[in-house]
C-alpha cells in the first residue's frame, strides 16, 4: 500500500508540473464558463427571448444563478469535459510509452501493478480537484451574476452539491480511464486521443441518434454506451431544467443503472490496463 501511495505522490508531482494538464483544465473551465454563463447572460442582456430555444429572458437569467450551479458545472461533463478527461488519461498513460519513460518507471522498486494503481489514484485526485475548481468558478460567476442582477444567491443544498460533485467526478474518471486504457493498450497518446475523441464526439451521438429514430434495435447497445450513461447520471442528479438540457444529457437509462455502468467501466478499464501492462514486454 505504501508503494501505491509513493507512486501517487510522484504522479501528482508530475501532473502538477505538466503544462498539458493545466491547458486541459483551463479549457474545461473556459468551456463551462462560456456555455453555462457567458452566452446565456449575454442572451439575457441582449433581450433576445428566442436566443435559447424560445426561453424567456427570466428563465435564461435563472439558469445562470447559483441555484443551478450543479447543472451548469456538470452539464457539459458527458461530452466536452469528458473528451478532455479522456485526453488527459491518454496523455498521462500513453505518454509514458511515447517518451520511453515506462521502462524507467518499471525498473524502479514498485511493481507494475503498484505503478498502475498509483497512477490511477493520482488521476482520480487530479480529476476531483478539477471538478472542485470548476464548481468554484461556477460559484463565483453565478454569485456575481445574482448580485449584479439583484437575484437570489441561494446555492443548492449540501447534499445536492455533494451528489453533483460525486457524479461529475465519476464521469470524468470514467472517461479518463478509457483514455488511460487506450494509452496502455496502444502504447502511445496520439492514436488513443484521436480514437477517443472521435468516439465521444461522433460515434456515440450517431448510435444514440440511430437508436432513437430509425433503428430501435440499437437501444440495448445505446444503453451501455459510456456517454449515454454519463448523460443519464447527470440527468439524475440535476434539478429539472428551465431551458434545454446541455448536449449529451439524456434520460436513456435511470440514475442507478448509470452509476453502476460507469463504475463498471472504471473497474474494467483499470483491470485491462493492469492486465495488459503486466503481460506485455516493454520493448
Amino acid at each position, binding site marked *: 500500500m505504501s508503494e501505491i501511495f509513493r507512486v501517487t505522490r*510522484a504522479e501528482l508531482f508530475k501532473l502538477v508540473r505538466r503544462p498539458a494538464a493545466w491547458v486541459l483544465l483551463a479549457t474545461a473551465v473556459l468551456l463551462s464558463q462560456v456555455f453555462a454563463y457567458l452566452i446565456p447572460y449575454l442572451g439575457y442582456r441582449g433581450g433576445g427571448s428566442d436566443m435559447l430555444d424560445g426561453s424567456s429572458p427570466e428563465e435564461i437569467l435563472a439558469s445562470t444563478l447559483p441555484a443551478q450551479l450543479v447543472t451548469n458545472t456538470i452539464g457539459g461533463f458527458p461530452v466536452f469535459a469528458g473528451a478532455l478527461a479522456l485526453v488527459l488519461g491518454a496523455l498521462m498513460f500513453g505518454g509514458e510509452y511515447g517518451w520511453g519513460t515506462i521502462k524507467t518507471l518499471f*525498473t524502479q522498486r514498485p511493481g507494475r501493478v503498484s505503478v498502475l494503481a498509483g497512477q490511477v489514484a493520482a488521476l482520480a485526485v487530479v480529476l476531483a480537484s478539477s471538478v472542485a475548481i470548476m464548481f468554484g468558478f461556477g460559484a463565483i460567476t453565478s454569485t456575481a451574476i445574482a448580485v449584479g442582477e439583484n437575484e437570489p444567491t441561494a446555492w443548492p443544498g449540501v447534499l445536492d452539491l455533494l451528489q453533483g460533485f460525486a457524479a461529475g467526478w465519476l464521469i470524468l474518471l470514467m472517461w479518463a480511464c478509457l483514455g488511460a486504457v487506450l494509452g496502455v493498450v496502444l502504447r502511445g497518446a496520439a492514436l488513443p486521443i484521436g480514437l477517443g475523441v472521435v468516439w465521444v464526439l461522433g460515434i456515440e451521438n450517431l448510435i444514440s441518434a440511430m437508436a432513437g429514430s430509425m433503428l430501435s434495435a440499437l437501444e440495448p447497445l445505446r444503453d451501455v454506451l459510456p456517454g449515454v450513461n454519463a448523460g443519464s447520471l447527470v440527468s439524475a442528479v440535476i434539478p429539472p431544467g428551465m431551458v434545454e438540457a446541455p448536449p449529451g444529457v439524456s434520460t436513456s437509462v435511470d440514475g442507478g443503472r448509470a452509476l453502476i455502468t460507469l463504475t463498471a467501466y472504471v473497474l474494467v478499464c483499470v483491470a485491462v490496463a493492469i492486465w495488459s501492462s503486466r503481460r506485455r514486454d*516493454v520493448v
Partner: protein
Amino acid sequence: MNAVVEAEGLTKRYGDHAVVDSISLTVHPGEVYGFLGPNGAGKTTTLRMLLGLISPSGGTATVLGERPGSAAALGRTGSLIEGPSFYPYLSGRDNLRVLATYANVRGSRIDEVLELVALSARGRDKFTTYSLGMKQRLGVAAALLQDPELVILDEPTNGLDPAGMRDMRRLVREMATGGRTVVLSSHLMSEVQQICDRVGVIDRGRMLTESAVQDLRGGGELIISATPADTARDRLTAMPEVEHVRVEEGVLRVRADDRHTADITRVLVTAGVAVSEVRRDTRQLEDVFFEMTGQSINTAKELDHV
C-alpha cells in the same frame, strides 16, 4: 562466491526467430562486466530480460539472487537501458525527484548523484535543454539514485563525443569502486577493453565466449629476443613451466603462463644468454572478437566508429 547475475539458457523468441538464443552468463561481485556484440546481437534484449522488462521464452536467470524484475532485485539495481528516458517538461532534478519518490529514496541523495555526474549546476534546467552527454549523465545519476549493488548500463557512451565518452568511461570505473558490480553493453571494443574486467561476447543471439579481458587478449605468446637463440631455445624447452617454444624470424615465441615470465628470464640470464626483450604478444580485443565472429576487419572499424 555468489554470482550477482546468473543466467542459464536464457532465450527470447519472437515467432520463429530467436533474438537471444540460450545464453548463459555469470557476473561476479565487484567486477565490471562487458557485454560485447554488434548492433542487433541481442545485448539489449538480454539486459531487458535481466531487468524484468521482457519475459524470457526459456531459460532461467537470477539477479542478486532474486527473480529478475522483482521488487527485491529492482530495489538493489540501477539501470540505464537504450538511452536516457525522462520527462521533457521537468528539470533534471525534478525527474530524479519523481524516481526518488517511486523508489523511496531520501531527497538529499538527489544532490549527491547530481554532484557525482557533474550536473549540479544544470540540475534545475529543463531536461529538453540538455545535450546528449548531459542526458546520458542524468541517466547514470538515475541509475545510482538507490545506491545500488548492481548497475546495468546499455551502451552508455552511445552518441557521445570523444570527451563525453572519456567522462562516461571514468564514471563507470568510479561506479565500480567500493564493491559495486557494473554490467555494461557496448559494441565498442576499445571501450570494453579499457574499462571491463570480464567480457561476454555475443553475436546473433548466441554467447560466443565469456572470459576475463586479459585472458582473451593474453592468449598470445611471450616474445623473447635472445642471443644465442639456439641455447635459449634448448634451455626453455627443458623448463617444465614452458609449454612450447619455437624460433621465428630470429625471436623466440614461448607459450607459458604469465606468472612464469620472471623464471624464464632468470633461467636464460643464468645460462649466459643475452636477453634484449621480453614482452607478451597481446592481441587487441577487436582481433579476438572478429576471430570469433568471422567478420572482416573492415566491419570492425565500422563498428568502432558508429
